[in-house]
């Protein structure tokens, strides 16, 4: 009996709306725009965060990057890389002693011009590393040639492996294999070409890369610049810098000439080992065995490095480890923040739409005072009137919401089609829009409806 009454009231409300379709449509427009905006924002937000997740997964989500220095120690911020605390031996120890770590590669970075013939290019990444780098990055196959070897590292051989972008920029289609490229006047022979990997999640081209033995990059390429850049660093590195400086100055005097000194043999090398004790590397890149083992790997690496660096308990780490989950959460929280920001703007427009509804309903109550009085005179109770006006508001909001959902879906499809932005249909967005638009109807329809319900029948009938 009660539902039957409500059904009649719904029909009454619909009739009332149909009597003024233009006004109902304009009123609902606020809700339509608001709901459409909510849908579009939520779908774009969901799509972009899904895209970020995919990118992270494709670029080796299990990588852990060890950098020297602490972000802040005793209130003094050094910034990553400002102190030299990581050595190749640290990398070796992590490989040996951390079971949760699958692969380790020490890295020396440089940023300079690479020249071939009359062409030159500044690749985004020049990494001095070990052959294990490819395993860490899960970059297992080469497009051509092969990776340099451990003996290349011992000998600081002037060989390199190039990424696809660098090949394209320098060789313009010709085969780079066996050619010599110059990096700060040091000639590197190209012995391999990497496969294509595409952009990483920061949008940087991962194929814009040159890989070489870390010893070569350390002593022959960055030697001078490292010393000038880090004058305060330990004089211990002076020895090695001295060596590379003399090599470099010779290369400058006689470009293209073979080295004046004979290349030391392996036994010579073993007898006079490079001063690795005093050598630092810029970063150590590691890969955990699986995503689940990242926290374990973090703990093991921290323990090994603290031990090796003789840090007492309570002393802050002189290194920091960045994992991709940290990065991915940063990225996705940034995109979530953006999405929430947009969403709140969209919600504001919903509220504005709600205020529009309230305004129209108030006008409508005043305009229909006589009608309300008449309905009361023939037996409508206050709550019947309240229900009628409330249902009118909710029907307008829900109809607006439905149109808004369709419109929002259409626009987000259009955005994907035209701008190639990733969007994803969000059931949550649709459900919440329906709930929110009904809620807006109830909240903003209540006051006018309550005002109508409180009218006195005889005064309402007398209203001019």
């Amino acid at each position: 009996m009660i539902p039957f009454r409500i059904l009649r009231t719904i029909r009454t409300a619909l009739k009332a709306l149909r009597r003024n379709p233009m006004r109902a449509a304009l009123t609902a427009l606020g809700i339509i725009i608001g709901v459409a905006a909510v849908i579009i924002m939520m779908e774009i937000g969901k799509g972009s965060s899904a895209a970020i997740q995919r990118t992270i997964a494709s670029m080796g989500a299990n990588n852990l990057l060890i950098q020297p220095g602490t972000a802040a120690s005793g209130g003094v911020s050094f910034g990553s890389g400002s102190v030299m605390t990581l050595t190749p031996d640290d990398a070796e120890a992590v490989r040996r002693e951390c079971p949760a770590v699958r692969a380790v590669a020490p890295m020396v970075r440089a940023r300079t011009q690479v020249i071939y013939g009359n062409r030159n290019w500044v690749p985004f990444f020049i990494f001095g590393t070990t052959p294990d780098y490819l395993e860490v990055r899960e970059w297992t196959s080469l497009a051509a040639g092969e990776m340099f070897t451990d003996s290349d590292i011992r000998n600081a051989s002037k060989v390199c492996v190039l990424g696809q972008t660098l090949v394209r920029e320098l060789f313009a289609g010709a085969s780079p294999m066996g050619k010599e490229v110059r990096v700060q006047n040091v000639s590197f022979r190209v012995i391999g070409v990497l496969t294509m990997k595409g952009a990483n999640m920061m949008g940087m081209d991962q194929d814009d890369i040159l890989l070489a033995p870390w010893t070569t990059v350390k002593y022959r390429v960055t030697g001078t610049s490292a010393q000038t850049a880090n004058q305060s660093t330990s004089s211990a590195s002076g020895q090695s810098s001295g060596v590379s400086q003399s090599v470099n100055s010779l290369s400058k005097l006689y470009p293209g000439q073979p080295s004046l000194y004979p290349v030391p043999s392996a036994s010579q090398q073993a007898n006079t080992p490079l001063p690795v004790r005093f050598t630092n590397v810029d970063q150590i890149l590691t890969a955990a065995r699986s995503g689940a083992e990242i926290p374990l790997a973090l703990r093991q690496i921290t323990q090994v490095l603290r031990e090796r660096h003789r840090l007492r308990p309570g002393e802050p780490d002189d290194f920091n480890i960045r994992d991709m989950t940290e990065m991915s959460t940063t990225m996705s929280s940034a995109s979530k923040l953006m999405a929430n920001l947009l969403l709140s703007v969209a919600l504001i427009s919903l509220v504005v739409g709600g205020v529009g509804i309230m305004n129209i309903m108030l006008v409508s109550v005043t305009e229909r005072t006589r009608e309300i009085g008449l309905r009361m005179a023939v037996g409508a109770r206050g709550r019947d009137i309240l229900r009628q006006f409330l249902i009118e508001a909710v029907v307008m909001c829900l109809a607006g919401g439905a149109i808004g959902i369709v419109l929002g879906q259409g626009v987000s499809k259009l955005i994907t089609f035209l701008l190639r932005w990733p969007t994803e249909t969000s059931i949550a967005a649709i459900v919440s829009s329906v709930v929110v638009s009904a809620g807006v109807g109830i909240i903003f329809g209540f006051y006018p409806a309550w005002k109508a319900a409180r009218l006195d029948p005889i005064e309402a009938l007398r209203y001019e």
Partner: protein
Amino acid sequence: MNVIELHNICKTYHVGELDVPVLKGITLAVGRGELVALTGASGSGKSTLMNILGCLDRPSSGRYVLDGQDISGLSADDRAHVRNNKIGFVFQNFNLLPRTSALENVILPLTYAAEHLTDHQATGRALQLIERVGLADRAHHEPSQLSGGQQQRVAIARALVNRPSILFADEPTGNLDSRTSREVLSMFEQLNREEGITIILVTHDQEVARHARRAIHISDGVIVDGQFGPGAAP
């Protein structure tokens, strides 16, 4: 057997600081099945009394018993229920819903009726009444497409649709020409005679007042004539 009993009903309007007493102690009894004409000069308080009788307004003081039920203490919702179930009210100025067909207007009270009617039954009952007031061919016309007399007949059909036992009509013929008012009045007489509906109607027309079996004359807020019906003892 009195269907209406008024005991010393007073109504005072407050206009600003000023008290305007309109009804000054009305005591009245109306028996079931009576047809009563209420007359009086303009401003004497006829409409005020009718609104109180029709449970649209509340008296300032006094007791009103309708059909054995004390109305004076009822809440607004309960009075709405009484209006819907026991009373039919015909307004002086029709009060039809604009842009709504005659049929819809007649169905309106059924929307709020407690009794369970299907749409079909409700429409059937409304059509039957529309036919009865002679507007079968105008059922789907809107008020603006009807003449004054036709509109008033729609209003009468609406007043009857819930099968009330009492019908109040405040100057039902006030806006009609003499021929249509005679038609409307004979309809009231017929309803009273054939259905036994108690009818109280306000009129200025002495002819109409004479037609009624009982005429109450009100002047300056008090009843000066016809307080006691033919059957009722003082």
